[in-house]
């Protein structure tokens, strides 16, 4: 959804005659638009009913949402491909040894790092962050202390959607945006979160690195394994750390 929105926003910006570098702003605005539109609709309308229920139900609900959004994007944007090439050429090329790289890839790494640190800082170092963490730990206690839990849920979900849409928007310039791009992301995001351990930002960062490196390693050393390198990495981590790498210690129950 983020990628498609980015395609439209960059096109509108270009049509309105903005300078090419403005297309980066278009990407961010596209993500905000998706978050603002989609998040309240989905969270209030649907997910609210399932809070506190078995988490497997939530996985199924999001799977159903995935099916619906897949066709929704097709109805809105049609089946033909979109190219969002303006931002891609903005950062020129970089010669590293005899390999030529596109500046955009490095910019992407920087943006990812900034987002990661930003979210970490937001959660652990600001008042709102503390409130969100409190709600995650136990909603009842937080609400008894006067926290409007439902608004925190909506805000947290919207921010999550914004980051996901931003991911789509930033990838859009590198690929041809068309039906079917979304399938591969689902499993990779599962793998990253599970390897990293639920609810831990450092975990997600490390998880993403592991998944990325596993894939790259497979491509360079043993190409046939590329297909299931991610799942192998996920299985191996789960075998040794059943709760993922960074999960918080659980209190003893008796």
């Amino acid at each position, binding site marked *: 959804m983020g990628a498609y929105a980015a395609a439209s926003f960059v096109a509108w910006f270009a049509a309105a005659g903005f300078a090419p570098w403005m297309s980066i702003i278009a990407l961010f605005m596209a993500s905000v638009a998706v978050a603002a539109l989609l998040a309240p609709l989905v969270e209030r309308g649907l997910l609210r009913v399932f809070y506190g229920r078995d988490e497997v139900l939530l996985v199924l609900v999001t799977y159903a949402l995935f099916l619906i959004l*897949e*066709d929704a994007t*097709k109805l809105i944007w049609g*089946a*033909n*491909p979109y*190219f969002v*090439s303006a931002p*891609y*050429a903005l950062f020129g*090329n970089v010669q590293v040894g*005899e*390999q*030529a*790289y*596109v500046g955009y*890839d490095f910019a992407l790494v920087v943006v990812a790092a900034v987002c990661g640190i930003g979210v970490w800082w937001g959660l652990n170092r600001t008042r709102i962050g503390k409130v969100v963490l409190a709600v995650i730990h136990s909603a009842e206690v937080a609400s008894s202390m006067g926290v409007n839990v439902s608004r925190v849920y909506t805000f947290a979900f919207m921010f999550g959607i914004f980051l996901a849409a931003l991911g789509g928007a930033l*990838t859009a*310039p*590198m*690929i*041809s945006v*068309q*039906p*079917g*791009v979304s*399938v*591969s992301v689902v499993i990779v995001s599962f793998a990253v979160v599970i390897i990293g351990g639920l609810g831990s930002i450092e975990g997600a960062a490390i998880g993403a690195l592991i998944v990325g490196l596993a*894939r*790259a390693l497979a*491509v*360079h050393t043993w*190409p*046939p394994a*590329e*297909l299931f390198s991610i799942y192998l990495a996920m299985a191996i981590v789960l075998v040794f750390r059943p709760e993922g790498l960074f999960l918080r210690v659980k209190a003893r129950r008796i």
Partner: protein
Amino acid sequence: MKRIEALLIGGLFAAGSACAQETFKLGVVSFLSGSAAESFGVPAVNGAKAVIEAFNKGQAPAPYNKVGFGGVRIEPVYVDENGGATKQVQELRNLYDRDKVDAVVGYVGSGDCLAVAPVAEEMKKFLILYDCGTPRIFEDGKYSYVFRTASHAVMDNVALARYLKARSIKAGSINYINQDYAWGHDSRNDFKAAAAQLFPGSKAQTDLLPKFGAGQYGTEISALLAQPADLTHTSLWGGDLQAFVLQAGPRDLFKRTQVVISAGDHVLPGLGDKMPDGVILGARGAYGLMSPKSALNDWWWKLYEDANKVYPVQAPYRMVQSLLGLKLAVEKAMVANGGKKPSPEQLAAALKGSEWESPAGRIRMNLADGHQATQDTAIGRTKYDAAKKMVTLVDIQRFPADCVNPPPGVKGEDWIKGGFAGAKCP
């Protein structure tokens, strides 16, 4: 024609469809969603819609000018091929049993083709595979109700190798990047075997197999640039090929190696100036910019372009050639049985071993005992025409069917390894 459904608690039973007046119900199955929709599915279905409408109005040029099929109006039923072979087998049974279609034309994915062919055979219903390329359909099995009106994928890579040989392009070392599924493996093996025949001593270097629908090729491009070869062969197509070109272009991969694409014409309209010049590519037949000059082709080109505002590429071409073949077969069968709608057996007998003209040249059903078509093909080089703001194909070389297709009864791979025995080339 109204369709009645009663939703019972126990299950949903569809009453038979009452048809007001005699129509030829035609099932059309192709990708309407998923990653193959944009490149193969939707363009082919748009082509089918345009042609069927023209048939029903009797506006097609002779010898296809009768209304519908032999006077009988065509009623198409469109089904989405996305969802895996299991779903396609169920959908095919529903088409034949529930929707009572007289014939089905469809299937792009080779997995789907392999799955549905035996089902049509078991149900003794008429099926035309219009697009999938795996040679295994008729090499591993024998069918009397199943036909394929497009040549299989062996010819694309053979023609590619012959084009390089004819232009004596250096092929001392070759890198490969193909999608990690049957189509990718077969194309890589065919080209490797052909290269071994035509360029003895050429060395295969990096051999990459990214996941189907990967979309992110940063790592692969770095691997290709780490050991640049004279030639880089790929059978990537659709969104994956577009992403690969978008990511490899700025990194000068196309300048440091001669990239060769076995089925790449369908991405040209979309990529436009982002497609580098000098890339050698095929289109699995003489399609689009490489199609031969003919009245039929001009009519088809205008019909498709008016309806869809983009010129037709390989997918709609393969759909139209299958519908033209079907039309002639139906009309031939109706002549034989006194004007009645032909049974699957009569249709099969009429199509078997037949030949007909199509916008992409002559289609001859001369392989696999008259069930597998062969056709001419062509290879060209990309050149961006700034004036017309579109990518054109130059230095086009045509290859007659007999030069690039194995003779009847010989498996594709054995034919290549056997040094193209019996190939008749100009």
